């Protein structure tokens, strides 16, 4: 099992959710987060004076999937979240040791 963590532009959340449900992903955890990457925040103007917004709002998705599903999941997220402009975000894949469904006690891929 793998844990796919993706940081995306907030306005792409609906597209990404749609793409993920189409490939059969059963669950997503969404968090509103702030941060910066190579884009390093950006500046705004107020009455002609600049001010820096250091941390930009982003959406973080966490999706636990079976090993066979990983590539498909990554493709779905990349496809739906990509605008080609700076700030599209990143996808991290980490190994997942165990999953337990609290209600039934199922474990492993059955619990996904």
């Amino acid at each position, binding site marked *: 099992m793998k844990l796919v963590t993706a940081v995306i532009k907030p306005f792409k959340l609906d597209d990404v959710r749609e793409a993920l449900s189409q490939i059969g992903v059963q669950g997503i955890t969404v968090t509103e987060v702030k941060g910066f990457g190579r884009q390093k925040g950006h500046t*705004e*103007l*107020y*009455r*002609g*004076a*600049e*001010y820096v917004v250091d941390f930009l709002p982003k959406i973080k998705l966490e999706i636990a999937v079976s090993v066979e599903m990983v590539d498909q999941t990554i493709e779905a997220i990349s496809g739906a979240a990509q605008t080609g402009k700076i700030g599209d975000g990143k996808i991290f894949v980490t190994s997942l040791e165990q999953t337990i469904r609290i209600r039934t006690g199922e474990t492993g891929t059955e619990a996904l």
Partner: protein
Amino acid sequence: MENDIFQLQYALDTFYFLVCGALVMWMAAGFAMLEAGLVRSKNTVEILTKNVALFAVACTMYMICGYAIMYGGDYLLSTITGNGVTGAEEPATYAPSADFFFQVVFVATAMSIVSGAVAERMKLFAFLAFAVIMTGVIYPLEGSWTWGGNAVFGIYTLGDLGFLDFAGSGIVHMAGAAAALAGVLLVGARKGKYGANGQINAFPGANLPLATLGTFILWLGWFGFNGGSVLATASVDAANSVAVVFMNTNAAAAGGCIAALLTARMLFGKADLTMALNGCLAGLVAITAGPDTPTALQATLFGALGGVLVVFSIITLDKLKIDDPVGAISVHGVVGLLGLLLVPVTNGDASFSGQIIGALTIFGWVFVASLVSFGVIKAVMGIRVSEEEEYEGSDIAECGMEAYPEFTTAR
């Protein structure tokens, strides 16, 4: 019959005067909302306190001595009665106490201009001490040379030189801005506003809906400010003049708004709302010196000129490190001067030289007198809150309460 008509005219003019005065009084609400919207939320309570207190101080000081200095008569309005000023040669065409009411709200307007410019760092009671001097002496003396018709320190009379300021672009607005500039120069910029390498940092206003509401309230109040300055409405001529003034006042505000919005969009690439709001007010200030003579198109263009000028003025003052959180010095001072200089364009009774001498007289007196007053107050009680208090916000430091205690705020 003639007596009946005179009575009707008297009643109507008095009524009109009072309603216009009430509209101008409402401008105090406009200034309070505009300033509350453009400061950071940690300074909201204090700026509101300043606005309501300065209005009360202005009313009281003008009653005690201001009106007497400006228009003659006795201190404490002791000779104003319901039937007119005792001992006057001609019968009044409106109730004298209505005249006082209309004049007193103008003093408060001039004083309101100061509060926005020194917002977020001046001590509350130092500011109110200045309000006592400004509304009791500085403004009334300047008003006595202009609307009061007295000679300036007995040397020259502005009226004879072709100086004309219909409703107070110079007498009220530029005077307020001159005092504001003196205050800003002595109190200094807000901490962190100007960086070490010459960069200018933005402190975005906390509540732009309030700032917009404030601007609309001022726009409405301005009909009383300019419209009431016709001083009568109960004849065909007077009524026509009032209608023209209303039309031109509105046109100038619209022109100022459009011009400022487009200027800001071209300079910054974004439609800066605060500049559009300042543009409305700049249009209004620009037309105030002469709303009775231009055509509607001319009024729109005069307003637009004010709208363009105010954006460049705000940027320039920032470059000079003159920190004015709400743009009051630009809106009322720089554009107030423009308003005075535009009068001779459409009104042959005014001359450019008279307008310039008048502007210099008003600015020179109010600025120097304010500088001295603020200087004395600074020496006696200090005019600036401590660095720590400024960081925490003057709401807690001065008033002991927050505007929005149930919200967590970013400092």
